[in-house]
């Protein structure tokens, strides 16, 4: 039952747990400790997932639920003990949206390109949408529209290639795939962004 | 069985009296007569009684009943040769009962006594290491099996002396006037007992008598073996007097020192167990 992948995974999980515990010991800020403890919960799930059976898959869900409820209980305690009664004015003010939108968007876009096709476009579009949500969208829509138009042209060109020069089918498939990726990506990126300036 | 229960209670109270007497004599005081604790119990049962106005009434009364009940159960477990784990579970539950005594009245002194009884929870950890050591030898935790093992292989006291020492520490931490009795320290008036007066205190004394009897009996049974009742009583008395010597000659530790000493004892026991396992 125990092969080397399990051992390696276990080793990595233990290393991650050690790192997390070490950071938990070093950290003094209560809020950051709460977040680090959440990190520990994720490693816990990794331990369960390593078993790699249907049963393990079924056990992850209760583990996750318990972890989240503990996290919520602790957050409530934190709010109460710090006396934080005011509702935040801007609900969508998450730290990662200031610090790392570029990285997360890039990861999503690259993953989308690897997937290709409709689903790839959706993933990549989500990445771009995330980027716009974080950074605002003043001049970028024009650029996206241009890209979308060019992609559409490419798609048409690919169809013509299929019909006129069928021996270059591979080139046509690749062109169409890339084009549809960019097209869907562009359309997805427009979801939620309103035209007519920032005050709409 | 009823007779045994009642006589165990009185024997336990008598032993507590002997404990006080021995301590007093070592400290060059005359000390109370040895039946003082029995008189205490009777005296308290004749005193006027009510429940304090601020108390949580049900809990205030229920913990007294539970306290006597669990030690009755422990006595039956020991005499009938049940599982050692049940006995030690009850030993730990006694902590909760003390906690309940302290918190239920609303008194600040009782509360601190109760909180201290929870702090001194370290005293239980050597107990479980002791159990593990016993299990490695006997492969059973049923008291009758342990007794049978000792009848064949000789007392466990000689085969696992460190476990016996840990058990001795555990007994010591439950003896009054001992170095670990931080719950009864005088700056807390009477600790968790402060508000349980009159009849409730008499119940508490009955519980203490039973507890002393059961713990001493169990220690003799687990580490030396089963003997006729007079020999058991003699061995228990010897054990008690040795405990009294320690209590008389050592000062009460501060709460954190007490915890530290018990933690060190636990660490030592864990090392010992690991050594046993590695050698086996």
């Amino acid at each position, binding site marked *: 039952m125990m092969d080397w992948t399990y051992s390696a995974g276990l080793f990595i999980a233990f290393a991650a747990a050690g790192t997390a515990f070490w950071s938990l010991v070093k950290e003094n800020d209560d809020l950051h400790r709460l977040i680090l403890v959440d990190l520990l919960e994720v490693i816990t799930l990794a331990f369960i997932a390593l078993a790699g059976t249907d049963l393990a898959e079924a056990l992850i869900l209760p583990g996750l639920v318990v972890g989240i409820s503990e996290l919520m209980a602790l957050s409530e305690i934190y709010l109460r003990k710090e006396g934080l009664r005011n509702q935040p004015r801007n609900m969508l003010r998450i730290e990662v949206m200031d610090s790392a939108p570029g990285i997360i968007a890039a990861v999503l876009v690259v993953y989308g390109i690897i997937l290709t096709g409709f689903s790839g476009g959706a993933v990549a579009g989500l990445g771009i949408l995330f980027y716009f949500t974080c950074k605002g969208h003043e001049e970028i829509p024009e650029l996206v529209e241009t890209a979308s138009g060019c992609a559409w042209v490419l798609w048409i060109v690919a169809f013509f290639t299929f019909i006129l020069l069928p021996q270059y089918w591979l080139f046509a498939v690749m062109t169409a795939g890339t084009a549809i990726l960019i097209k869907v990506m562009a359309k997805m990126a427009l979801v939620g962004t309103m035209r007519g300036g920032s005050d709409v | *069985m*009823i007779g045994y*229960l009642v006589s165990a209670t009185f024997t336990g109270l008598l032993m507590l009296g002997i404990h006080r007497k021995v301590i007093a004599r070592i400290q060059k005081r005359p000390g109370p007569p040895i039946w003082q604790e029995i008189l205490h119990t009777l005296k*308290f*049962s*004749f*005193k*006027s*009684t*009510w*429940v*304090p*106005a*601020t*108390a949580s009434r049900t809990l205030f*009364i229920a913990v*007294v*009943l*539970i*306290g*006597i*009940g669990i030690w*009755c*159960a422990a006595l*039956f477990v020991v005499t*009938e040769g049940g599982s050692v784990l049940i006995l030690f579970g009850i030993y730990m539950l006694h902590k909760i009962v003390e906690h309940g005594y302290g918190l239920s*009245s*609303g*008194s*600040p*002194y*009782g509360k601190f006594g109760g909180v201290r009884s929870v702090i001194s929870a370290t005293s239980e950890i050597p107990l479980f290491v002791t159990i593990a050591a016993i299990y490695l030898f006997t492969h059973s935790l049923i008291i009758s099996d342990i007794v049978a093992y000792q009848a064949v292989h000789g007392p466990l006291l000689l085969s696992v002396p460190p476990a016996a020492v840990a058990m001795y520490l555990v007994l010591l931490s439950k003896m009054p006037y001992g170095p670990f009795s931080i719950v009864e320290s005088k700056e807390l*008036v009477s600790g968790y007992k*402060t*508000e349980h007066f*009159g*009849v*409730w205190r*008499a*119940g508490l004394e*009955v519980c203490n008598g039973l507890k002393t009897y059961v713990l001493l009996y169990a220690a003799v049974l687990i580490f030396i073996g089963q003997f006729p009742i007079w020999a058991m009583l003699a061995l228990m008395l010897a054990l008690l007097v040795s405990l009294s010597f320690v209590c008389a000659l050592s000062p009460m530790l501060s709460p954190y020192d007490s915890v530290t000493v018990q933690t060190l004892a636990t660490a030592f026991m864990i090392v010992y167990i690991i050594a046993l396992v590695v050698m086996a």
Partner: protein
Amino acid sequence: MRRETAFKVMSAAALACIAAWTAMIAGWIPAFAAMAVFIVAFPVFVIFLALWWMYSQGKEDIPFIGY
């Protein structure tokens, strides 16, 4: 609580103990059942015996708050 109530509860607990003991000796119930009865009834008996002897009708007081 009135003295009569305490007496009634005490006698009930004592009767339960004696009944369980008799039944066990006669072999009607197993030993562990008798023990269960003792574990429940003995504390009740002890406390209510003492309460029957002395339960003051005095006024409830606040806890001890220092000398």
